[in-house]
């Protein structure tokens, strides 16, 4: 059972952002989605998570249609995501950012929590323990009581991934998780993501950092002008002349891809610094 895109299409007026994309994502693997800017990578993520509607075609997860469902319903059927521009709950603490993920399953017990303190204590202790464990995995336990918005940029990226993991999602969608991170942070991220690979989990990473994609991903989907250009192992992707052409015009030098990625990384870092 897998996540399947079937003749997927996304259209804004006359502009076609995603054009007839059919592919599937097997569990137990890390799938990379790459392509030049504007290729439609983020659009794929946004359609899967329900942020964008689907113009035509379908998205199915384990045999159930995802497209057409509301965003929160998709999240509750096991699809978690991060965002290209970090979207944490800034004024809540790091711990609360994770705890709130229990609302869909435990929100119904709110009145009991309000009226019967011992029950509230037990439940909130259990929630906290589960969330602290995830924070610890990402080396964020020292930030638990700090407001998410006040965390250093790199920690915010990690916290967003941590939040996506609270409900142990079947599908984990990461939209440029390394954007704005320095080398050391990217290395840390790469090793953490590798640890998240699990037989039940479908991981999809949209990323410009070729080092990260090539070392981490088991399979890579290359997008170009909204179309699926090529899919295969990292080695196959690197050797494919179509991919090289799409990325580089005429050159076939992989170093140029890396340079392009490096430039983008610097750009995002500057943007992040300006933001904080």
């Amino acid at each position, binding site marked *: 059972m897998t996540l399947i895109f079937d003749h997927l299409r996304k259209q804004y007026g006359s502009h076609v952002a995603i054009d007839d994309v059919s592919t599937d994502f097997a569990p137990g693997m890390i799938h990379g989605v790459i392509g030049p800017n504007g290729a439609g990578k983020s659009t794929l993520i946004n359609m899967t*998570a*329900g*942020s964008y509607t689907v113009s035509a075609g379908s998205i199915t997860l384990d045999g159930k249609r995802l497209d057409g469902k*509301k*965003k*929160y319903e998709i*999240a*509750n059927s096991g699809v*978690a*995501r991060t*965002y290209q521009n970090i*979207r*944490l*709950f*800034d*004024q*809540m603490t790091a*711990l*609360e950012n994770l*705890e*709130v*993920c*229990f*609302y*869909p399953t*435990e*929100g119904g*017990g*709110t009145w009991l*929590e*309000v*009226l019967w*303190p011992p029950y*509230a204590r037990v*439940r*909130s202790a259990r*929630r*906290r*323990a589960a969330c*602290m464990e995830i924070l610890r995995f990402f080396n964020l*336990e*020292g930030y*638990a*009581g700090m407001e998410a918005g006040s965390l250093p940029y790199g920690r915010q990226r990690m916290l967003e991934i941590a*939040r*996506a993991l*609270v*409900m142990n999602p079947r599908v984990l969608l990461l939209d440029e998780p390394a954007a704005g991170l320095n080398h050391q942070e990217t290395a840390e991220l790469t090793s953490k993501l590798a640890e998240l690979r699990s037989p039940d989990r479908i991981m999809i990473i949209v990323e410009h950092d070729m080092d990260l994609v090539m070392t981490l991903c088991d399979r890579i989907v290359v997008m170009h002008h909204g179309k699926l250009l090529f899919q295969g192992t990292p080695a196959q992707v690197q050797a494919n002349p179509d991919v090289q052409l799409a990325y580089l015009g005429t050159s076939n030098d992989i170093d140029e891809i890396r340079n392009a990625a490096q430039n983008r990384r610097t750009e995002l870092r500057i943007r992040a610094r300006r933001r904080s």
Partner: protein
Amino acid sequence: MSVSETSARAVPRSNRLVSILIFAVALALIFTTPFLPNYYVRVANSLLIYILLGTGLNIVIGYAGLLDLGFVAFYAVGAYTYGLLASPQLGLHLPFLLIVVIAALLGMLAGILLGVPVLTLRGDYLAIVTLGFGEIIRIVMNNVDWLTNGPKGIARLDKASIFGLPLATPVEIYWLLIVVVILTALIVWRMEHSILGKAWAAVREDQDAARGIGINTTNAKLAAFATSATIGSIAGVIFAASQRFVSPESFSLQESVLIVLMIVIGGIGNILGIVAGAAILILLPEVLREFAEWRILFLGILMVVLIIIRPAGIVPRSFGPDKLLRGLFGK
């Protein structure tokens, strides 16, 4: 560092001192007020009703981040529920507690009725629509003469009582209000810290990301509207029972604005802030009564000054009831 270690961190001495001081002053005020002349007790009652209203509206504005300018409508629902069910108007004289229950349910219903159509709106748009809703309720009360007596209002409301305990004099109403305010504050404070309270905060911070982690934002917002409306409606019942008279002019737009101001000046999202905001906005006009035509000017200047020096409100969100309690009882 584990969670228990973080929460058990020693309480700073200054925090403890401030907490004890606040608590002592509050206790002293609560127990001396009933022995003061009736005028002071009436002012205290009005203050307590506004604290109750502020606590209710704060759920929507402070916790869920939805600017509701029509809150007074729910206050009116409660007041007119008492006016109609405990007066010669319809010849009905139901017991006070039963009316509180009916008004709470009607308030909740009104909250949901308002919530459903406006849930897709945010910010300015929400503010305008809720403002309209508040005015609609007032104008309806003003015009359905056969039911509400129109602008003349409903007079000679019953004296309230609970299990034979009379609730008619200002002092009796005062004690009722003290109990209701403390109970409401406790419940609302516990709601803020419940999982629903966290969901409200998430909706406030980033509605779309909240949906992304599976929060049904429609339900969370409806819960906020309904809870807040229930509290507003109960405040209305007590208001009507203490005045023993209701008329539409008590539920003008200015009342809604006043409650919003209390929250903003006191400290958004903080029950202690609401007490501070209400104290300033209700007591100051009383103190300045002698300077009648000047007091709006005083209030205006005060507001400008406060917004410059304390933009987050008099009591910031970080000094909430938890901190006060920890200062009192914490290790």
